[in-house]
């Protein structure tokens, strides 16, 4: 029972618990809050693996931006929306069977694959953020720039989509 194991246990329990509560809640706002817990726990898992920068980015982008954006989406559509899953039980049961099949297949795959022995922890000469920065701006600089174009297109596209039709100024 090392500290890493305890931290992993608690964080993964919070992650899965948040996701399961997200499925079982009926009010949409509660679902978003529960998913926020999941996102923050996933950031904790990232820090546990040693990916500090990705963990911070997870907190900023997911539990910050995306949760708030989802709340805006709920407020702008139906204020007290309930998500009732009634009336389609046979279909839900079929989907449950399908998802259980996918789970079983992937479980079998994960358990039966000979994973390599965990390599000896190499002390990186630079810290995590600097390492990522060096790699992004040398090896992955073209995808990085393409990603900025994608974000610009998404920004303009979202504004045009959500704009009221008819006003042209």
């Amino acid at each position, binding site marked *: 029972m090392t500290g890493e194991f305890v931290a992993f246990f608690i964080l993964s329990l919070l992650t*899965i618990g948040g996701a399961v509560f997200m499925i079982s809640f009926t009010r*949409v706002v509660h679902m978003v809050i529960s998913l926020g817990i999941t996102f923050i726990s996933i950031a904790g898992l990232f820090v546990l693996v040693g990916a500090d920068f990705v963990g911070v980015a997870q907190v900023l982008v997911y539990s910050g931006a995306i949760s708030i954006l989802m709340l805006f989406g709920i407020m702008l559509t139906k204020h007290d929306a309930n998500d009732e899953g009634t009336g389609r039980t046979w279909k839900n049961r079929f989907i449950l069977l399908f998802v*259980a099949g996918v789970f079983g297949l992937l479980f079998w795959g994960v358990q039966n694959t000979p994973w390599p022995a965990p390599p000896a922890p*190499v002390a990186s000469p630079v810290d995590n953020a600097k390492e*990522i920065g060096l790699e992004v701006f040398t090896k992955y600089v073209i995808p990085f720039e393409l990603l900025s174009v994608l974000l610009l297109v998404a*920004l303009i596209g979202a504004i045009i*989509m959500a704009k009221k039709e008819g006003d042209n100024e």
Partner: protein
Amino acid sequence: MTVSITSYLMVALILFCVGLYGALTKRNAVVVLLSIELMLNAVNINLVAFSKFGLYPAVAGQIFTLFTMTVAAAEVALGLAILIALYRNKATVNVDEMDQMKR
């Protein structure tokens, strides 16, 4: 008792399956988008786990995760914009009633 790669893959697998179930059964479009985010997060966990425990540990997995996050943010922004435009026209967020292209 140490944490192996299998544990991380298991957490990601459970998260992915929960997200898949939610995306297929939920009827509110906002919740469907949330479930898709959950599935993308499961993939992110896998990538970060492989960047440390994989056969060739490299920082590339973390960079891929950053790219996935960016694409997911763009996706959710566009998805909500489409949802709001649709809500303005049809006054519903129920995915069962979004069947204009079937008729």
